[in-house]
């Protein structure tokens, strides 16, 4: 089997010297995305930490990138792909030219303020790939709770832990019956890139990739442990790697024996205040979810 380093193009479209925090998984993600989609792509950016390496003057990705506002990054996909369609019909863009349109949003910009825009673009099946960079809080504004923050998690706006459960955005997106929905993790680059290639090469339509993205700054763990935490999320069964390809669900990775959720929670400062009862309730939820996922 060839490794990712061998299969991905050598050319870098995302450059070093960017202002991401040490240990941020966003840098890896941006490299994999830009390498997989290549130069012939256009990005619509939301207000997220990812806008910093991509769009702070004079830094930028080596692909065209549009920032409109926090909410409408999916509408950016819509507008760009609509323009490409008509300009191809009119011969101003060569008809056979393949341009990948994608959007990058945080969990807050995707699932809270941008929910209507996201749902609208998905329902219209507009042509593009949407990435939700899920670091489970509003990180760019300094770690405030979002609908994607997990239950019991500390944030600066839930100092005693968030009472509500995490919103299951990939499942909501799958309910839109779009061609492709997948969950990915920065600890599983092969799975990430394979799914991205699949989305890239599919027929026109809306594809959704949800990236589990541990944030050392916001989750309170050492910056050297990003991949470890990301892997633990999958090995404990908390983050399930799956894809919904034209309506059919496939779980891509089933841990032989799931590790206890405590292994994932303990190293993270944001879960420091959890009681045994809280931990048990998370464990029960995971076990129930896997029972549902048996087939």
């Amino acid at each position: 089997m060839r490794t990712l380093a061998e299969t991905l193009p050598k050319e870098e479209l995302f450059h070093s010297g960017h202002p991401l925090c040490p240990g941020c998984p966003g840098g890896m993600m941006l490299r994999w995305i830009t390498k997989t989609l290549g130069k012939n792509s256009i990005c619509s950016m939301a207000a997220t930490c990812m806008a910093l390496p991509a769009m702070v003057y004079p830094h930028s990705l080596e692909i065209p990138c549009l920032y409109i506002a926090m909410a409408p990054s999916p509408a950016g996909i819509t507008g760009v792909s609509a323009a490409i369609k008509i300009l191809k019909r009119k011969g101003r863009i060569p008809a056979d030219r393949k341009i990948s349109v994608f959007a990058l949003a945080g969990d807050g910009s995707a699932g809270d303020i941008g929910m209507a825009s996201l749902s609208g673009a998905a329902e219209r099946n507009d042509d593009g790939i949407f990435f939700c960079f899920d670091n489970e809080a509003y990180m760019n504004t300094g770690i405030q709770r979002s609908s994607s923050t997990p239950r019991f998690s500390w944030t600066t706006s839930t100092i005693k832990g968030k009472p509500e459960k995490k919103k299951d955005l990939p499942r909501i997106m799958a309910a839109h019956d779009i061609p492709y929905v997948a969950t990915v993790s920065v600890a599983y680059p092969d799975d990430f890139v394979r799914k991205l290639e699949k989305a890239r090469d599919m027929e026109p339509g809306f594809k959704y990739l949800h990236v589990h993205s541990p944030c050392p700054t916001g989750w309170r763990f050492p910056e050297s442990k990003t991949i470890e935490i990301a892997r633990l999320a999958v090995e404990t069964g908390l983050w399930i790697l799956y894809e919904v390809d034209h309506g059919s669900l496939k779980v891509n990775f089933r841990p032989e024996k799931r590790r206890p959720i405590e292994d994932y929670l303990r190293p993270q400062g944001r879960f420091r205040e959890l009681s045994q009862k809280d931990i048990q309730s998370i464990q029960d939820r995971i076990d129930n979810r896997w029972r549902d996922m048996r087939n």
Partner: protein
Amino acid sequence: MGTHKMLTGNYAAAYGAKLARVEVTPVYPITPQTHIMEKMAEFIENGELDAEFVSVESEHSALAVAIAAQATGARSFTATSAQGLLYMHENLFVASGLRLPIVMVLVNRALGAPNSIYPDLSDSLDQRDTGWIQVYVENAQEAHDMVVQAYRIAEDKRVLLPMAICFEGIIISHYMEPVEILDQEKVDNFLMPYLPEHVILDPDRPMSVGQIVMDDSYYMEYRYQQQEAMDRAKEVIQEVDEAFGQSFGRYYGGLLSTEMMEDAEVALLTLGSLASTARAVVNHLRNEDGISIGLVKLRMVRPFPDQELSELLSDTKVVVVLERDVSIGAGGIVYTELCRSLNGRNGPHLINYILGLGGRDVTFEDIKDIALLSCSERHTTTIDNPIRWYQVRGL
């Protein structure tokens, strides 16, 4: 010659957009604009216009889609009213900041609460600081013609700003008038395709559009350049009016138009459909009663014709601003703008009538009464209560 049809203001505007060969049209329904959306969908569905119609899920997305499409090099068009316009607010600044010559029709409607579908110009006037060129038109023909002109003005390299064509809901949007639909071939000669150089999402020429500028980098220069573009728009608006007149035979005067203003002691200054009624009053008072009165029809609110107005009104004794809008706590919005134009000059007395809000009828007799009263005030040394709410019930 174009063809003549009975059209509502809404349909007249939609025909204008079709003639301009718009390429992407994201629109969200709201009364009294909805007919524009429906007509555009119909043109595209029928194959009469080669464009992408996008049924967006909100006005916020409507303008975002227009921004993204325009930034990719397609000519974009949208339309809205009142609450829809305010829902777009954030993106209005984005469109102008990115220097995207998007054209939008704003069908003026009162803002809730209380909710009314009838006109009040406050919705679009409220957005005058967003960096859009704003023209106010008085009938369906002018709406039709201005959609075509708007693309040529907005896309001019000296300008590159978005532009809004504003007219009153129901009164102009819904009533039918005879309209000359311009000839497509002549419009094609008048308006070249949109081929952007300044902002383009093109993989062969990667650029960040809407990037973050930190601390003391170039934010201030961005804004200054917008101001310069707005200033240059004045001459472009005049040029395009002239070119349009030569091609199609109708001249609108550009920034503003006047009637019987030579030697006028009293001027009625207004915009939108009120201009038609005021014109009739001015003609009547001049011809029947020999009263020295004239009309200023304000067309552009952005760029505001400060210089032009201050020169035009230098010998006028009284200027009466009639307007269907209000900035609560200040007065009529056009009146407060005019105060700036005439600032520091020993100019005319200014009187402001706020009237017709929520579509309340403003008749010939109403304006005539106001005009006659104002004439009687031309010799006073000071004007009492310059800001007047006209015929408010219960006063």
